[in-house]
């Protein structure tokens, strides 16, 4: 089950609706990044920081849609965990925009340049794909059944603790 509700559709989650203050993600993207996540161009965002988070998230997880409510929860959790998070997101998105960095090469580039932004992609990936924000003693679970690692395989597997099906239903070939 792929969520089809796009960011902005339920923007009232984080701010009272004030359409005049919203902006489209298109304004945050260059032609290069827009080509990777064309769906995002027309998506409204409540403010630039959230818009940048949605755009960067979409680039990293490589999906053409992201659940808006989940985006809000993850953004809030990540921003709470690190006061620099919104600025770091803006900075990394700008970097990708300007240098046309392939998402698949991104981590290698940041690590190679000893960039202070190097931990950022992993923290965003962890949030979206595992539902986990933070690490060590500060780790928090923000999502489980709706984390992308569950969503991506939902046609074949149930998240552990959820019943697969009636007794013996697992004997057949996965299809």
């Amino acid at each position, binding site marked *: 089950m792929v969520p089809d509700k796009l960011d902005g559709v339920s923007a009232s989650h984080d701010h009272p609706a004030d359409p005049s203050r919203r902006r489209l993600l298109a304004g945050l993207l260059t032609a290069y990044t827009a080509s990777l996540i064309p769906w995002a161009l027309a998506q409204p965002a409540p403010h630039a920081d959230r818009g940048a988070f949605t755009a960067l998230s979409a680039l990293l997880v490589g999906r053409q849609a992201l659940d808006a409510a989940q985006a809000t929860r993850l953004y809030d959790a990540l921003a709470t965990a690190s006061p620099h998070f919104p600025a770091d997101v803006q900075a990394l998105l700008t970097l990708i925009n300007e240098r046309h960095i392939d998402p698949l090469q991104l981590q290698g580039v940041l690590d190679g340049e000893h960039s202070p932004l190097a931990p950022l992609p*992993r923290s965003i990936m962890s949030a979206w794909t595992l539902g986990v924000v933070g690490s060590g003693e500060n780790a928090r679970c923000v999502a489980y059944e709706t984390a992308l690692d569950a969503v991506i395989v939902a046609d074949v597997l149930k998240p552990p603790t959820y019943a697969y099906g009636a007794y013996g239903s697992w004997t057949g070939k996965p299809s």
Partner: protein
Amino acid sequence: MSAELSADIVVIGAGIVGALAAQRLARQGASVLILEAGPRLERARVVAAFRNSPFKGNWMAPYPPSPWAPHPIYVPQDNGYLKQAGPYPYPAEYIRAVGGTTWHWAAQAWRLVPNDVRIKSLYGVGVDWPLSYEELDPWYQEAEELLGVAGADNTGSPRQHPFPMAPVAEPWSMRRVRERLAPAYPVVANTVARNSRGYDGRPACVGNNSCQPICPVNAQYLGINAVEAAEAAGAKVIPNAVVYRIEHDVKGHIAAVHYYAPDKSEHRVTGTTFILAANGVESPKLLLLSASDTYPNGLANRSGMVGRHLMDHPSTSLTFYADEELWLGRGPQSPSSINTLRDGAFRSQHAPYRLDFTNISQVLNVTNDLIKEGVYGAEFEKQLRWRAARQINVKNVLEVLPNPDNRITLSAEKDAMGIPKPEAHYAIDDYTRRAAEVSKADFARIAELMGGTGLRYSADGQFANNQHITGTMSMGNDPATSVVDAFGRTHDHENLFVCSTGVMPTAATMNSTLTGVALALRTAEHILPAKNSHAATAHVGHETSLA
């Protein structure tokens, strides 16, 4: 000090082993009191704790220790409860709670193979047990019927009567492994305490794939089921009762045990017969803690063997990608293994082993790997599906020989209640290491037969632990070299018995719980014979009473 409590039988520890001994004794009309250091848990809360945990790969996460009855925790960091004296780490995991460690287990309920109890005579290594496999057989049967064990007859462990249940339906992944490894390796259904049909009021498995850390639906037998059976038979459980001393009288009989409540108030419990069933680490700790002027080395320790001969099952493993989609994670976690290497003349040279396949969903591990590798963008989803469909793991389960230098002692460090922490002294010897080397050829052959790519062997010299704590209160006929006799009675104290996997003199190659339960039922019969007992015929009546 509060008013004294008293019972015919006082059991220390409310795990699966002690609770099943307790239920058997309570059924015979004895008054039974079970003292458990940890709290009572609720299944639904454990399930919720797992779902909300940021550490889903750590099966201890849903079982946080209570301040008054700590247990070892290693994630996100070592809580320092089980001290490590080395040279090799022994990071045992167990749960101090009503129901004990089998709140989370794979429910692998194996019997030994007959030669496991005679390795000294047959292979010149380890020790012989003070009883034969044939003597164990009826107790295994009784244990299997209480737990509800599903299994097949082709695992190398003979039996006189049928399994209570047919094997659990084979997941597609394991079917393909079985088909592709034949005839080089016979892959057989694991013997498990998991329902392949409704049994004893509990449902058949529905494939939640979370056997560890928690079966949400009660299709897998847990220690809490044993506790509830004991209570139904009339036993009383006192949770949060941290026993810190066993008291003896002038004749060396056990007179009472003393426990702390969480507020550290002291309580004394008297009884006629005492059963120590607090697992292979906490039980020897308590015997050592109970030293007195008469017994300066601790109770039941005339031999000096209490806490010694610590054994478990180390594992090395191979992870790889099969050349077809298997999609581990559909059905139960531990369905299948290879049992042909559990015995043989090679045991004079190196350890025997089982080869165990997991059917645990690979999604979590694969996702972690992809994030670690920095695989982002469209490739992430593609790789996640490809790897989660094909990744498979096989591990060995290696025997460790009894060695008196591997032991549990009392640490100088104390827990929050002021009780010394246990300290592990552990090493893995060449007998076991040689087997790990030998099994690499099996790993390679298995990968070859599965069209494996991306082979990742566990690091040389690194062993994962399996939490099958054995040996620390070994049984034997000689009081100079063992702690309890063949019936679990301590050589030194007539009314003190031990029910635990810790009485097993050798570890063999199978998960130890069923053997621990079988021995405990035998001990219970020795303490108070069942009416109409037993042994080889008892199972008939049992099936009726369980229905």
